[in-house]
């Protein structure tokens, strides 16, 4: 046994690109744990996350934020907890909290996360995202899984002009290319 602590490699090499009207940044500070609700276990899980993080269960199309923790709907009986690990909060500690009330799976490594922000963000997304991102239909906090350039993607609106875009880690370069191309091609 050799002690060579392994270094984590970001999916997109910590990419950070600035375009005329938007900025694209890889978010490597977000940990993800998927949380499945056991049959007849909704109440217990809801009570637990309320108790521990002050978080409510998210609706089908809206993520919820409480402090450092964000709950993102994934499926009818599954959500994702997204958080920035710090002293008290880690993938292991979050999973440990939920052992008795949910089925959790480490998902941090399954996804690459891009933050897209700026006045041109929605114009760039218009080229790849089939969803209606009008603030009336997709307000702050809204979350949806969809398909962009043939890749599964999860889009979350943080603010009017700030989005998180998540896609599978193995195809992250293709996803980045798609978003980057949109930013470049829609730059005024």
């Amino acid at each position, binding site marked *: 046994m050799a002690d060579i602590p392994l270094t984590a490699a970001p999916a997109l090499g910590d990419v950070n690109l600035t375009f005329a009207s938007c900025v694209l940044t890889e978010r490597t500070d977000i940990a993800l744990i998927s949380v499945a609700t056991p049959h007849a276990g909704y109440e217990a899980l809801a009570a637990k996350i309320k108790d521990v993080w002050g978080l409510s269960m998210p609706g089908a199309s809206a993520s919820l934020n409480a402090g450092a923790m964000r709950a993102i709907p994934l499926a009818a009986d599954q959500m994702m907890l997204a958080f920035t690990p710090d002293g008290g909060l880690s993938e292991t500690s979050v999973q440990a909290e939920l052992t008795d009330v949910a089925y959790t799976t480490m998902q941090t490594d399954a996804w690459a996360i891009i933050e897209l922000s700026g006045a041109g963000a929605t114009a760039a997304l218009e080229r790849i995202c089939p969803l209606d991102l009008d603030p009336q239909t997709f307000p702050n906090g809204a979350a949806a899984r*969809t398909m962009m350039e043939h890749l599964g993607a999860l889009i979350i609106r943080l603010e009017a002009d700030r989005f998180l875009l998540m896609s599978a880690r193995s195809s992250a370069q293709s996803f980045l290319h798609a978003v980057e191309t949109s930013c470049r091609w829609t730059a005024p």
Partner: protein
Amino acid sequence: MIIKHPLLGPRDAAEFVYLGDANMIKRPEGFGENVEEAMYEHVYLRENPAGEHHELWYHEQGDRSWLVVTRNTLTHEISSVELARDVARRKGRSK
């Protein structure tokens, strides 16, 4: 086409995968010779009407729910969309 997902609202059909006749929910349970005939019909015989059809669609690029979509195959009009899980339970499926 657009499928009005019962939980998520209208979504482009491109997010979905089509399977076919919703009768596939009615899988004969059990094994051995007594279910062979029923299983033969289940596997090989499908409704394929020119008109209203109950179909299974899978929201693969979405929330991974299976849906029962009632669609007119002549006009593509979709008259109802339900979670397949609810339909399955209604038809008596459980464990």
